[in-house]
């Protein structure tokens, strides 16, 4: 490989790291203390690890959702909306089914969240297949619609009994996910299982092979008799289901109720997670942990080192840019594959 680009890339990383340090000095804080807080807040003790695990869980589900869709050449930008309707459905069903015997309410709530997410993803697929409405625009619009839907629900039919605050009532304990250790709930285990399952589906089943074939080269796939529309619908249903699970698990494992500002942008972060992971389920696990750790460490940086939220954003951005530069250092095989994995364009 040519040496010059590598030097350039290493230089980019050095500059990025230097910028981080300078930014922290400009913020008036000791960069060692601040970066120490970032790492300490992400991995330093059991509380930090629990926090990282909690923040990783929704990113893992949504990251997988985005990864499989992009693998199939379907640009699902809608994990955010699918997560929200998943949370909405889980809250509604969780409170309705609360009286059932112990594990049933939680299972029903989680299941309804998965179904709702799948339906929201399926709606975008339906628009694409029947009316040729680009799934990019469909999913973006459905994101904004889902945000308003949640707002309407918590101000209207799902507002708490006391009718004071725009939020639902707390779900009955029977509908909540069991806690494993500290605040870490069973949903994190499900997330890891989901990653394994998606790996198996992608690389060990016919469905996964078809998704990958359609994503890599839709024309060749069509010649082989794979219906691109069928692949599109099935991958959007699966993708939506994963994102819906993320929302349901946030409600059932962390918040216990739905409220107006429920969305924390996981569905958008998931796009970066999936692409950084090269759309590989194993990579998604690691990338989700990286972003989860960054989010957990970011809070600690504010609380411990007194670095304000805006400086934290700069450090986070510099970290992503650096990781990206590091990624670019490695030689890659075949631009055509990357093209399929990377773009926002449509499969013809």
């Amino acid at each position, binding site marked *: 490989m040519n040496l010059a680009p590598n030097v350039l890339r290493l230089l980019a990383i050095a500059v990025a790291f230097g910028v981080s340090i300078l930014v922290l000095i400009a913020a008036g804080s*000791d960069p*060692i*203390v601040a*970066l*120490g*807080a*970032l*790492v*300490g807040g992400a*991995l*330093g003790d059991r*509380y930090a690890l629990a*926090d990282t695990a*909690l923040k990783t869980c929704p990113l893992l589900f949504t990251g997988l959702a985005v990864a499989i869709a992009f693998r199939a050449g379907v640009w699902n930008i809608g994990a955010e909306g699918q997560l929200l309707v998943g949370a909405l459905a889980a809250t509604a069903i969780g409170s309705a089914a609360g009286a059932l015997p112990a594990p049933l309410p939680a299972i029903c709530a989680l299941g309804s969240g998965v179904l709702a997410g799948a339906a929201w993803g399926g709606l975008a697929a339906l628009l694409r297949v029947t009316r040729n409405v680009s799934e990019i625009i469909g999913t973006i619009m459905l994101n904004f619609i889902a945000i*308003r839907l949640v*707002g309407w629900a918590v*101000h209207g039919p799902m507002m708490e009994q006391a009718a*004071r*605050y*725009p939020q639902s009532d707390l779900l009955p304990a029977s509908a909540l996910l069991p806690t494993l250790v500290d605040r870490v709930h069973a949903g994190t285990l499900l997330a890891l299982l989901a990653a394994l399952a998606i790996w198996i589906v992608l690389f060990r089943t016919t469905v996964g092979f078809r998704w990958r074939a359609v994503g890599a080269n839709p024309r060749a796939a069509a010649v082989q008799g794979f219906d691109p529309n069928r692949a599109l619908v099935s991958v959007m249903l699966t993708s939506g289901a994963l994102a819906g699970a993320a929302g349901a698990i*946030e409600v059932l494992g*962390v*918040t216990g109720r739905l*409220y*107006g*500002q*429920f969305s*924390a942008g996981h569905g958008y972060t998931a796009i970066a997670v999936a692409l*950084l*992971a*090269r759309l*590989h389920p*194993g*990579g998604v696990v*690691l*990338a989700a942990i*990286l972003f989860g*750790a960054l989010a957990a460490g970011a*809070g*600690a940086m*504010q*609380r*411990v*080192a*007194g670095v*304000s*939220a*805006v400086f934290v954003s700069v450090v986070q951005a510099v970290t992503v840019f*650096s*990781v990206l530069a*590091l*990624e670019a250092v*490695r030689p890659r095989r075949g631009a055509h594959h990357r093209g399929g994995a990377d773009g926002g364009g449509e499969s013809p």
Partner: protein
Amino acid sequence: MPRPTLLAWLATLLVLTGGCTRGEESSGFRVALLSPGPISDAGWNAAAYEGLLAIAAELDAGTSQVETRTPPEFEEAFRDYARRGFALVIGHGFEFQDAAAAVAPDFPTTVFLTTSGNTVRPNVAPIVFRLEEATFVLGDLAARMAPDGKICAVGGMEIPSVRSTFLAFEAGARYGRPDYPVTISYIGSWDDIGSARTAALALIDNGCRFVLHNADAAGPGVFQAAAQRDVYAFGSNRAQHEVNPRAVLASAVIDIPRAFVDVATQVKQGTFRSRVIERTMADGSISVVYNPLLTHVIPDEIRAAVDATEQAVRTRVITVPTAEF
């Protein structure tokens, strides 16, 4: 195959910083603030941060501030501060109540204060600002100045504290004339200045002569609309006439720093007892501040009548209606 790179990156970070321990923390009186948005909003969050700075200056306290957006973050921040021995942790909004109540039993020596709310525990207390008293007076002022017109309000989101200030604004307008028309729009955001401007323009074009905003950082959009249509607007939370001297006739103002310092003093002296802490016009925490450049716009007799209303509110001769929350 992203494994080597990502892991290498994490490892590098760890090596670079791993040897460093967290900074030694002082063990004196410490206070933390959880703000729901950026402290640079020149409004709700900025006022809370000024309160934190005032506590640091007047009570020689160590302070810390964190921007938190979601309940999981609220709880995590409450826990972390309490674990590290902060004496007072302030959650700046009603939305912090759940998290405060959930964390408080584990940390009986820390006081958790929420700005607005109704949850009281041995070490959880809400501080409620009766901004409604000021918006009531503004409603009265607007209705007197536009006896045949309409007035309106633009809200960020329909949360109880915002709805309540609008309810009082409406009641103030109807103080003189029971059927006075008041229209309310919401923009669904706290920072979308463009939507705030459009909402205000639509209201003004439908006949409204005065616009109150309670949309935090989006407020300047309301002022811009008022300036371009030659009507007047009212600021909220802070005296906002400097943001748009041409349009802002008066503001409904909360003195958050003073209230925060009072509570922190009690906590420091060990005299704090948990209750709903109410701050009103009577104790000087709430006021109506007029734009000095536009005082000539208000006829003397109207100003006198409005001042009388304000006095009646302050002395509780008039009971200002509020949304129950």
